[in-house]
């Protein structure tokens, strides 16, 4: 049976972050799940950048809407690698806003929970980056 942390985190996946209503729901769900001081290290393959707090996360997803007409993290597997450590792997499905070109990429996200709140997330484009 998946832990409550794993069930919680799944609620912010499968969302099209470029759609206004879906993004609003996603950000509301993220605010429930994430600690206000959450840090999110984006995939090293796309630059060494750390998002600090929910505000940076919201700015990041607003950038997705500028760039893409569709951007979705579709989860294929959820693994609890240790207590409070959840790894999700899957495929990003996206579409360029003006090119309309369908694009995809594998992703791996490692979430760390403390007392039911996400305090850290690390991302990678390598599906095995955080394998247990």
């Amino acid at each position, binding site marked *: 049976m998946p832990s409550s942390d794993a069930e919680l985190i799944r609620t912010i996946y499968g969302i099209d972050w470029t759609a206004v209503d879906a993004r609003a729901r996603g950000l509301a769900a993220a605010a429930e799940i994430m600690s206000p001081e959450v840090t999110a290290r984006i995939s090293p393959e796309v630059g060494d950048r750390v998002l600090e707090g929910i505000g940076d996360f919201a700015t990041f997803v607003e950038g997705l809407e500028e*760039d893409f007409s569709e951007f979705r993290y579709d989860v294929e597997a959820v693994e609890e690698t240790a207590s409070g450590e959840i790894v999700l792997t899957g495929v*990003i499905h996206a579409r360029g806003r*003006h*090119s*309309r*070109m369908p*694009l995809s*990429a594998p992703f791996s996200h490692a979430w760390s929970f403390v007392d039911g709140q996400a305090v850290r997330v690390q991302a990678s484009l390598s599906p095995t980056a955080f394998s247990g």
Partner: protein
Amino acid sequence: MSQENVELVRRVTDVMDVEGFEAAFPVFLEAAHSDVEWREDPAWPDSATYRGVEQVGQVIRDRMDTLDFDQTTEDLIPVDDKVVALVRWRGRGKASGAQGEISIAIVWTVRERAITKLEFFLDRAAALEAVGLPRRD
């Protein structure tokens, strides 16, 4: 002739691969016939066919603006007056930095040492079939 066609296409794709689409644009225009045709895969949303360097130039500019695209050319296959380019495009968002990839095929038609048509196939196997080649795994 097939090898000459490959060399002409390679002149453009080499610049696309190394310096990017913007740098390749004038090289492409120089190699293109004035009535060049740009035919997009029907599976590409809002796809259309454009004709002439002016229309083709405009569609290239229109489609590039929110993502930085990198291209890797994996193979150039000559077939009669065509060259099938198997390419991988990586698009990176200018605002978010998020990126994704797609592997496609572009069939270039070359006549009298000028590029007369580009046909885009989101499914590489369909491109190979279209020029009479067997599918590749």
